[in-house]
Structure formats: C-alpha cells, structure tokens
C-alpha cells in the first residue's frame, strides 16, 4: 500500500492506461501545463503532445472530436475542466456520444471518458460548483461514475478508460488533496459495484462522491451512541448497485440517501423511489433524501453554506428516522 492523493491517483490511472494501450489519449485545455488542477502534470513530457493534447477553448469541439475519434479506433479521455463547462457540449455528449452506437445499429462503439470535476469548492459560486450527475443517469447510453477516494479514483478511472461505451466521470474538486491508501499493484474497481464503507444495522445510508466523507463521519459519531449506520458509497451511479442497496435496506428497514446535488430531481429521487417501490413492506420508516435546496450556489460563505448538506443535518435525519413513527 502506498499513500496517494485523489488527484495523484487519477493521474496514475491515466498513466497506467496510456502505457497499457497506445490508443488511449487525452484532450483538453491547458493539459500541456498539467491541467487546471495539475491532474495531467508531466504527462505531456511522458507521452508527447499528440497523446496529451492541448486544445482551444472549444468545449463543443473537444467533446465532438472525441466522439469522432472514439468511433474510429482511439480511446479519448476528455477533460472538461469544470462540469459546468460541459454544458457547452451537451449536444455532443447526449445527442451524439450517447446515442451513436444505438442509432447506427451497433456498427461501432464510442469508448470515451468524459472527466468533469464537480462540486462546491471554496466560493466558486454558481458557474463553477454544480453537480449534475442525475442528468447523466437519465440518458440511455451513458455510464456515470463518481469516485470518492483515492483508491477508487485509480481503480474506477482505469475501468472507465477500458469501458467500450461513453463514461461520464465525475471527480469532486474538493477531494483533490485527499490522501488514502492505494495498492501498489494494478488496481481495477469494477463499474457498477458499490462500496460498503461502514457497516451498521439500523439505517442504510446511500451516498457518493464528496458526501461519502460526511456520511462516514456521522456514522462513526452515531456508532458511539449505539446507532448503526450502514454507509454505501455507490461509486457508479449508472448502473447503480441495486443488489447491495436492497440487501442492506432489507436488513435495516430504513433508507437515507445523501448527496451534494440539488435534492429536487437529484439522483437520490431515483434511489428513494426504487426502494419505496420494491421494499415498501420492509420499511420501518419512510425513505428519506438529503441534498441541496433548489438554489444556485452563492459566493459568500453564509449563503454558500445553505447549499451544503451538513454533518448535523445528516445526523438529525438519521435520528429522525429512528423515532417511533407518527402515524396519523
């Protein structure tokens, strides 16, 4: 085991896969100078400017060119810089990348990975902070991944690069400096498998990305009080690991979904609805969701904080679910 940051782990994934498969290449703005967060540092020196390609500020063409290059025998890694800027390339992702294999009757595939750093990050305000994962889960043809730890960023990014369909790969900006243990040898995490991050018997807490860490803090805090919280980090949002979630809820009888994105029509709605549909009769309490209010993200901290799901609100939600039901 080595200790590595989330950022370094993503960098290692790219290096390993580019070494393994010469058809893998990366394209995006400023990659030659390491990318905006340093995720690509030194890679152009290692792999040359053809395979670590600096691009114009042309998000639509970055995404669209990747589609064309993916259809024709290469495996592009698209760097979108901030997930917010990927909104300049939605036709290319949704109408083209996601549908091409189907629309053209399976004549080819579109093996590309779209890296979109997401999430709130020190007063970045409304255009540099969004989490839109639920959008992508709604689009047939897309795989959606949101790693929360260094080891998962390594193992999932490698699996994403090897995947033959387009993957939207959402790294959380706040996690870049997070350190964690990583196997020295090759480490692949399968797409579609959740991580049971904390065991517990009273409440199943489903989460992903940045919120994993708040959920774990609360789980440990509540464990000390004798409340058992099972924290499941989905890691892959589409396809999501229903088996693991359902098995847990069958045991606990309670589901709380926690995510950073806006709660309304967030991916928590899909999970909560699925559990309510399938396990209604097993539930000891109503399903619950925690997410951001339906507001753009403000710059000033007192207002920005209103968009955050705090540890306190998570703990309060768990406690609320354990109170005797107020059947009216």
């Amino acid at each position, binding site marked *: 085991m080595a200790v590595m940051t989330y950022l370094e782990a993503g960098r290692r994934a790219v290096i390993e896969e580019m070494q393994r498969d010469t058809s893998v290449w990366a394209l995006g703005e400023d990659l030659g100078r390491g990318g905006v967060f340093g995720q690509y540092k030194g890679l152009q020196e290692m792999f040359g400017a053809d395979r670590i390609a600096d691009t114009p500020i*042309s998000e639509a063409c970055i995404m*669209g060119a990747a589609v*064309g290059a993916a259809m024709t025998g290469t495996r592009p890694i698209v760097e979108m810089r901030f997930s917010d800027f990927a909104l300049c390339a939605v036709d290319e992702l949704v109408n083209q990348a996601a549908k091409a294999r189907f629309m053209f*009757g399976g004549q080819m595939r579109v093996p590309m990975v779209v890296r979109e750093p997401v999430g709130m990050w020190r007063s970045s305000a409304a255009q540099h902070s969004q989490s839109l994962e639920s959008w992508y889960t709604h689009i047939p043809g897309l*795989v959606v991944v949101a790693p929360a730890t260094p080891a998962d960023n390594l193992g999932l990014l490698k699996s994403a690069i090897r995947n*033959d369909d387009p993957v939207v790969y959402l790294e959380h900006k706040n996690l870049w400096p997070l350190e964690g243990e990583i196997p020295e040898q090759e480490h692949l995490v399968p797409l*579609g498998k959740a991580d049971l991050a904390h065991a517990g018997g009273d409440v199943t807490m489903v989460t992903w990305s940045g919120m994993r860490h708040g959920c774990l803090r609360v789980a440990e805090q509540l464990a000390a009080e004798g409340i058992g919280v099972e924290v499941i980090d989905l890691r892959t949002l589409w396809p999501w690991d229903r088996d693991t979630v359902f098995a847990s809820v069958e045991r606990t009888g309670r589901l709380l979904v926690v995510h950073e994105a806006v709660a309304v029509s967030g991916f928590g709605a899909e999970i909560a609805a699925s559990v309510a549909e399938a396990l209604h009769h097993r539930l000891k309490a109503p399903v619950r969701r925690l997410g951001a209010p339906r507001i753009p993200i403000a710059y000033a901290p007192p207002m920005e904080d209103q968009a955050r799901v705090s540890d306190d609100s998570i703990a309060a939600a768990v406690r609320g679910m354990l109170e005797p039901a107020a059947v009216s």
Partner: protein
Amino acid sequence: MQDVIAEGRHHNLDRDRFLGRLALMHRIRAFEEEAIAAQKDGLVLGAIHPSIGQEAVAAGVCANLEPADLMLSTHRGHGHTLAKGADPLAMMRELFGRAGGTCGGKGGSMHIADFGVGMLGANGVVGANIPIAAGAAHAQKLQGSRQITVCIFGDGAVNRGPFLEGLNWARVFDLPVLFVCEDNGFSATTRTREMTGGEGAAARAESLGLEAQEVDGNDVVAVDAAARAAIDAIRAGQGPRFLTCHTYRMTGHTAVDPATYRPAQEVDEWRGNCPIARLEVALRLAGESDARLSALQAQESGAMAAIAQAARDTGWPEATGAFTDVQDIGDPRERAF
C-alpha cells in the same frame, strides 16, 4: 446553362470516369424518387430530405474517396451515402424501417451510417458532424493513417458555433479533412443569405486559416476536379481544405414540403440547370451516344425499382432490438423498478 457546359474543357472529358459518375447520379436520383414515391405510399416512416438536383456534389466529391477514407453527412445524406458505396437495398430498408436496414432499422434516413464503407453517419443535428469529422481526422492523424475524412454539411450549418470550432480545430491540429459546404441557398424555409453575415462559408473558412474554393455545384466535372485537387493535397499532408459547392434542391426541404416560399420561376431556372442533364450534354459533346446514355439511366432506375420492391417485401426488425447496443453494462429495460 448549355453555354457553360459547352466549354472547351468538356470536350476532352474522361468519358469512362464520367460515365461512372453519371451512373452514380442516376442511382442517387432513382433512389430518392423511389423513396419519395414510397413515402406517399406510407412506406418511408420518418422525414426524408431529398437531394434531387444536388447529385453532382455527392458524385463529384465522394466518388473521389478511397473505400477506407471516411465521410460524414447530414440529414440530406442519401446521395453522399450511396456515393461512398453503401448498399442501396440496405438503405431503402432503413428508410422503410425494415430488417436488414443499414442501421437495422434503428436510425432511419436521418441517421444512416455504414461504417463498412467509411460512412460515419448522417446527423439529425445541423452542424454536429463537423466536430465529429474533425475527431475522425484527428484519429487518422494519431494512427499515422494515409486516409482522409470528408465532412459535408449545408449552408445553414455555417451559422452554428461548431462550424467555427471544428474548422479551427482542423487547422490547429493540421488534420486530413476536407470540409464541403453543400450550398443550396436554403436553411429549411429560410434563404440562408439573409441569415449570414459576410461573404459566407468560404470566407469564414479562410479566416480560420483553411484554403477554400468555390465551385458550381451542379457541374460534376468542376466539383470532381476541385474535390480531387483538395483530396490529393490533403492526402499529401497539406492539412485541411474547404470547398463550397453552389447548388439548389429541386424538392422542398422534406419530401412533403411544397416549398411555396420560393418563386416557381427560380425553381424552373434551376431545373434547367439539372446536374444530370448537364453531364449528359457534356458526354454527348464528348462523343457518347444517346443510346448508351439512356441505357445507363434505364439500368439504374430499373435496378432501383427492384430494390424498392425488395425493401417492401422485407419484414420488420425484431422488437427486442430496442434493447441491444445501448451500452454494455446496466439494464436498458429498466423502467423504474
């Protein structure tokens, strides 16, 4: 228009070459006439955008490509697709939504693709093929291939952002791609000129650093010469080029559009400028016999009638195809739990 055709250069026409082009143009015309007729019979299910009158662009550009070269087209792509070598029966089946269609019936006219012959797809989104083409050419460059990519789009596409982004990209990365603006003067019901600042497509391409040329898009000899020169230069490693072909569509925007937004006289004038008729005149001037020319047309239209009949006689694709080729992981049947 006869004057134009009578130009000296047509006298030493490469007859074999242009007999082939003529056959191809007849094939395209026959394909679309059959498709329009079939749509009247309710057999073509979705919208079709005929290229009748524009066949010289398809024949003049695409027939210059090697089979392994790549080509991307638009919603008005039947001609390009046939010229790149796609099977007309599979295409007709695709338009009819039948089994054995080019895309297995999943795409229809607007999403025809035949990767087997390097045809990477029509597109339902105007201009969307431009960045994709840049990417295909990018892959060719990365792969050290000698093949090139051709991207055809309409005059309306030059007002979309991806036009700028894609052409700039091709220049910056020095990619082996020929961009062809098939300028028929219209964006659906609107005259493109009125919505286009500056001199138009070629001037914009030049401002982005691409060498650009404009030709009479109803003169297949001219289109062929310009496309060949551009393609040779691109294959020789000289980077991206641009070609505008001025033409006109004889039909409406779709097969059911009466196109009342343009004067009958204008349409008539262009009808007199039919690229097929013009090539026939040129071939006659070059010594080809009437008999040979009409035999050629008869052969293509006869073959196409048989193809249309065969497509009519083909069954539907399996419903379960709806769930294949979505993505390898995850259950596409998922409708909620």
